[in-house]
């Protein structure tokens, strides 16, 4: 490797093996935490789903009442799983794109500890009855502050590594990563400061909270997932991204319309119509970045001669991208005036949320975890286990999303007739809620199989150091007893 005289002080390009090695423990720590919260979150999801069709189940314990379990489930998935997995992927992608070792790895460990502690404390606070009352931000301010602090340390490592990169031009994934990393702390500040810490007057609190909730999906999780896809797609297809310009266009339109679509969550609510209108219009315009991304995906992966689409991440990327398009389309459909009359305030929105969170973001992040874990450990997952995970996830997500979306149509149609009592309308949803419980259970099973494989790889990778530690212990014990023998004890 030639060193450039005018680059004195700048790190030189480093080999891929060294980069992977430098990322190993920081990234795996975040992935392990993410998978732990994914499993716990899905368990909370199964439990809360059971309570929707079996309301007497475990009803005498306030810690697991439905109104606390459900926000616990969502917050654990958003902050414990998705945010942590996104950060782990971001660190690895940044190091690989910068072609240098991951810098400030120590900050990642500290940040990871804080992030996980914040989620744990936040969950306990929600189950103890201290929820803020606002969706996707039920974790009280203390837990949220710790989570954001942990996030900042990790983001610092990522951004500093990027700053010291040897490659001046930024690949498109880096755009999405920088965008997402910058948006997260803004969103948390706006949401928490204006709705919880120093609340605005009246319904403006809901506007601030909706801004955070919507922003977390479109300005934080979506860019991180798209960054991952844009990085992995060339690896998996062996072809370059079809159009960097389309990708950049998709980035700018996503940031712009994602930021403005916040108040679409309050459609039909007690806010002036123009606020809803601005949000809903921006939500419709989200079809633009989705179209840019989808066309890039299709033209990269499917156009031209049939190239091999191999690599462990491919099914995750495919399913996740399909889910992204479906998610935005269903979300937009729910805001059209006709459908909104029947679908708003029904479980339809729950289905759309799960499609975005689990179907789109979740699957792509899991694909990233698979691919990156194999790279940093220089090992391979057993393919049958991954197949089981993908299959179970697919089936489970379709059951959950399908159940909720269809139940929205059914319940909405019944509620549109004022003569039908509310209880009748809600009881007609029982089979769909049952399907959702089954779906969540199936997803959970699939992830358990994956976590078993992940743990196995980790144990294998640490076998040498664990054996070394064991023999060190044995040596200490032997020399200890040897000394005693010589002393005639």
């Amino acid at each position, binding site marked *: 490797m030639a060193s450039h005289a005018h680059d004195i002080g700048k790190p030189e390009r480093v080999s891929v093996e060294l980069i992977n090695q430098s990322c190993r423990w920081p990234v795996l720590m975040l992935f392990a935490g993410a998978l732990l919260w994914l499993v716990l979150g899905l368990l909370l999801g199964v439990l809360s789903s059971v309570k929707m*069709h079996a*309301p*007497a189940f475990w*009803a*005498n314990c*306030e810690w697991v*009442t*439905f*109104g*606390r379990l459900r*926000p616990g489930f969502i917050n654990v998935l958003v902050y414990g799983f998705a945010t942590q997995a996104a950060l782990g992927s971001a660190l690895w992608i940044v190091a690989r794109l910068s072609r240098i070792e991951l810098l400030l790895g120590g900050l990642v460990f500290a940040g990871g500890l804080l992030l996980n502690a914040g989620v744990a404390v936040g969950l306990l606070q929600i189950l103890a*009855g201290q929820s*803020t*009352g606002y969706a996707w931000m039920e974790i009280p301010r203390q837990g949220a502050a710790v989570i954001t602090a942990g996030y900042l340390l990790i983001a610092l490592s990522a951004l500093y590594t*990027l*700053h010291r990169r040897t490659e*001046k*031009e930024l690949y498109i994934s880096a755009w999405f990563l*920088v*965008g997402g990393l910058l948006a997260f702390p803004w*969103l948390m500040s706006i949401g928490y400061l*204006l709705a*919880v810490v120093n*609340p*605005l*007057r*009246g319904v*403006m*609190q*809901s*506007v*601030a909270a909706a*801004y955070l909730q919507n922003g977390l999906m479109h*300005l934080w999780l979506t860019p991180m997932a798209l960054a991952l896809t844009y990085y992995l797609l060339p690896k998996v297809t062996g072809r370059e991204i079809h159009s960097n310009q389309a990708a950049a266009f998709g980035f*700018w339109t996503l*940031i712009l319309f*994602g*930021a*403005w679509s916040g108040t679409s969550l*309050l459609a*039909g*609510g*007690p806010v*002036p119509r123009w606020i809803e209108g601005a*949000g809903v219009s921006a939500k419709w315009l989200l079809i633009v970045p989705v179209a840019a991304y989808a066309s890039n995906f299709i033209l990269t992966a499917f156009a031209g001669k049939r190239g091999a689409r191999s690599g462990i991440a491919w099914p995750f990327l495919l399913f996740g991208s399909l889910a992204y398009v479906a998610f935005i389309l269903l979300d937009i459909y729910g805001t059209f005036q006709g459908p*909104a*009359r029947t679908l*708003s*305030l*029904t*479980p339809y*929105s729950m289905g759309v949320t799960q499609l975005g969170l689990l179907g789109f973001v979740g699957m792509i992040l899991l694909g990233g975890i698979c691919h990156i874990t194999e790279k940093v450990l220089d090992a391979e997952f057993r393919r049958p286990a991954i197949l089981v995970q993908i299959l179970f996830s697919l089936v489970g997500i379709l059951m959950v999303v399908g159940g909720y979306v269809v139940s929205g149509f059914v319940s909405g149609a019944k*509620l*549109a007739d*004022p003569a039908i009592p*509310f*209880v*009748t309308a*809600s*009881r007609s949803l029982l089979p769909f809620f049952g399907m959702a419980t089954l779906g969540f259970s199936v997803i959970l099973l699939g992830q358990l199989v994956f976590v078993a494989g992940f743990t196995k790889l980790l144990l294998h990778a640490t076998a040498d150091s664990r054996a070394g530690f064991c023999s060190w212990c044995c040596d200490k014990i032997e020399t200890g007893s040897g000394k005693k023998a010589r002393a005639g004890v």
Partner: protein
Amino acid sequence: MNQIPLIFLGVFAAIATSFWGLLIVPQSQIGQLESARVDNYLSGYPRPRTGLASQGAETYRANGCVECHTLQVRSKTQGTDIQRGWGTRRTIAQDYLLESPVQLGSVRLGPDLTNVGRRQSDSLTLLRKLYNPRLVSEGSLMPRYEYLFTKRKLVGDERASKDALPRDTEPGYEIVPKPEAIALVAYLQSLVSDAPLFSAPVLGVKTNRTSTAAPAKPSK
């Protein structure tokens, strides 16, 4: 070219402009609302919530009632809320002036509660509904809130206390609501948002002619 500053500026601009458009501008419009002058509301509308009712609001938040119930009435063009008797008019920003947190709700697994104080003002019915919803609404999917109540064994000839739920347990025991349950019921009974307002009139009812934003001129 180092594109990071460009991306930073772009993200900042998107968030700053949307923050201005969706938060600052509305704040100047509805964040400055004051209590409205409405007949029968001596201290203005909305009526400040005090005592047991404000404690009950905390219980409502702590138990996540917002996960199943909404506190917003939609207009006639947007849904059948009014036809269902969930309110006489849609709710507007004025109705939530004194709320914190504002728990509009996003899904109706249970009915809307904005005006439940009008529909159901009997404390005993509300308490029984919390203890076991199936006692009051057959087929209801609402969870039981048993932990808001204490089941006590009656000692000897002791009679059931005044607050106890009658008839809902085997002889020799009584179900007594805890303070949280009583506060929650007081909160539910305070939930009424049907005062006719300038921006949200009720058909057939006279409203005060001033809008909520303009100060009232003193009459001669």
